[in-house]
């Protein structure tokens, strides 16, 4: 069974398709020329070894020139990445460009969608975006780089606005014109704003008429490669200096430390989760509402890949820092609001996949999260369990009673009827779709459950 990847239809060099668990790219004439230049180049093998480019090999049959790519454990998008990830992908793009230019090659595109994260590091997946540089050609990807990488990073670093929501609203990037109208006053003096935002926005507007100046005009006049290198080096220096600056102290930061678990209850919870995960060992686990990621770290011992999701970008950035210290490469922290998770987007809403259309998790951790969804997002228990049953077969879920101290804190400004919110009702709902295989009270207000989806579902 072959499934054409909707991400590849724009690429004139080849079409990506999925066959079972394997990823192939069928090449066009243009793709064959590019691949021939790449495979004989001195750098391609080194890039693969350094982890810059996805391992790729030729599986061509006589009539169909085809490449196979190593599969990425879990696909993610720039509007889900924390600031650090977007910055690291941008820096890899620039570093690779500088190296390629020194060898007469260039990246024809500079979009963050050409990168994925593998073992906590960015990697170029669109190998055919590396091509021989035509003499005198400018860097055609500069505009794309600014909108997809630079502007979201400037927005987050200079204006303390998390880039994810804006980039999700406009996946091709944040336009310089829009960003320019935000960067006023003293912000204009900050590094990169005058040149790459203000001037760029103005030039786009003033010289945007198609008849004025074309890439061919510039190529005919021989754009100096040294000029491209100079621009890239300045962008490198600018991006290296950008730091993540959250808008405020996160409400959820140190939440785990502040939470009302006694040491005994916490140990019971960790032991329960570890025991079930060791039984359910598998390829992919999701930790929904992961907070500081303690249980993601636990799951990483038993699962090939763990995806940690939290809507708070600050929490996710903190988790990245924590994972780098460990180091734990098989945890992918993503900014994701479970009450409004990533939908399908792009052409026909198929080009960029929704979170539920990607690889299905073998297990979902849903710990101390039900009541947050119920109180803060007004999602009834029945809907939460229904969604979980469509997402996974194995579930570890914690129920917290409204009499719990932390629950009461959540409710302090809420007037909600919680008459249906109790352990008995929760268990009944859970058992409609799942079989409870184990349960354990952690203290008088908290109970943890391991559940397996009913086979007749």
């Amino acid at each position: 069974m072959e499934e054409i990847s909707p991400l590849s239809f724009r690429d004139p060099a080849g079409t990506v398709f999925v066959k079972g668990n394997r990823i192939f790219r069928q090449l066009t004439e243009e793709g064959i020329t590019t691949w021939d230049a790449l495979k004989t180049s001195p750098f391609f093998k080194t890039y693969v070894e350094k982890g810059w480019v996805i391992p790729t090999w030729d599986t061509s049959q006589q009539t169909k020139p085809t490449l196979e790519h190593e599969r990425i454990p879990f696909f993610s998008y720039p509007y889900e990445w924390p600031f650090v990830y977007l910055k690291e992908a941008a820096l890899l793009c620039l570093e690779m460009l500088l190296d390629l230019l020194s060898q007469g090659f260039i990246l024809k595109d500079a979009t963050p969608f050409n990168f994925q994260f593998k073992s906590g590091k960015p990697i170029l997946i669109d190998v055919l975006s590396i091509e021989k540089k035509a003499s005198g050609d400018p860097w055609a990807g500069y505009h794309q780089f600014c909108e997809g990488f630079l502007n979201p990073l400037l927005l987050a670093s200079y204006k303390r606005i998390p880039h994810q929501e804006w980039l999700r609203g406009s996946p091709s990037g944040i336009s310089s014109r829009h960003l320019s109208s935000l960067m006023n006053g003293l912000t204009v003096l900050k590094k990169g704003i005058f040149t790459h935002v203000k001037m760029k926005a103005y030039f786009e507007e003033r010289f945007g008429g198609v008849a004025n100046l074309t890439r061919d005009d510039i190529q005919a006049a021989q754009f100096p490669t040294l000029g491209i290198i100079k621009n890239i080096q300045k962008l490198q220096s600018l991006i290296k200096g950008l730091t993540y600056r959250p808008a405020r102290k996160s409400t959820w930061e140190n939440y785990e430390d502040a939470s009302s678990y006694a040491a005994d209850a916490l140990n019971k919870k960790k032991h329960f989760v570890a025991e079930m995960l060791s039984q359910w060992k598998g390829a992919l686990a999701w930790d929904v509402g992961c907070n500081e990621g303690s249980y993601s770290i636990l799951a990483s011992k038993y699962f090939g890949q763990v995806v940690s999701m939290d809507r708070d970008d600050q929490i996710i950035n903190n988790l990245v820092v924590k994972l780098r210290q460990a180091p734990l490469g098989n945890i992918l922290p993503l900014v994701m609001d479970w009450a409004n998770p990533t939908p399908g987007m792009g052409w026909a809403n198929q080009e960029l996949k929704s979170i539920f259309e990607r690889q299905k998790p073998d297990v979902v951790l849903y710990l101390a999260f039900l009541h947050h969804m119920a109180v803060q997002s007004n999602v009834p228990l029945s809907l939460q369990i229904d969604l979980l049953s469509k997402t996974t077969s194995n579930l570890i879920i914690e129920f917290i009673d409204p009499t719990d101290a932390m629950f009461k804190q959540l409710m302090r400004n809420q007037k909600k009827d919680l008459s249906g919110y109790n352990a008995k009702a929760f268990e009944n709902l859970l058992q409609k779709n799942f079989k409870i295989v184990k349960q354990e009270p952690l203290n008088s207000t908290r109970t943890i459950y391991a559940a397996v989806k009913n086979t007749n579902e």
Partner: protein
Amino acid sequence: MFLKCGIFFSILISPSFALAYVDPNAGSMILQLILAGVGGLLILVKIFWKKITETVQSLFKWKK
């Protein structure tokens, strides 16, 4: 920076081109030339000089 500002303001007062279908890449390419330093500026002058001479030549032909 001084050079860049000078060029930016001299372009500010230059005549605007007609905006039919907007292609932001065209503006980005001019900016790249400016950011490329002296080499890029010479290319920019070369391109615009060619455009100006072509325009003058076409006007001259039309008048004949």
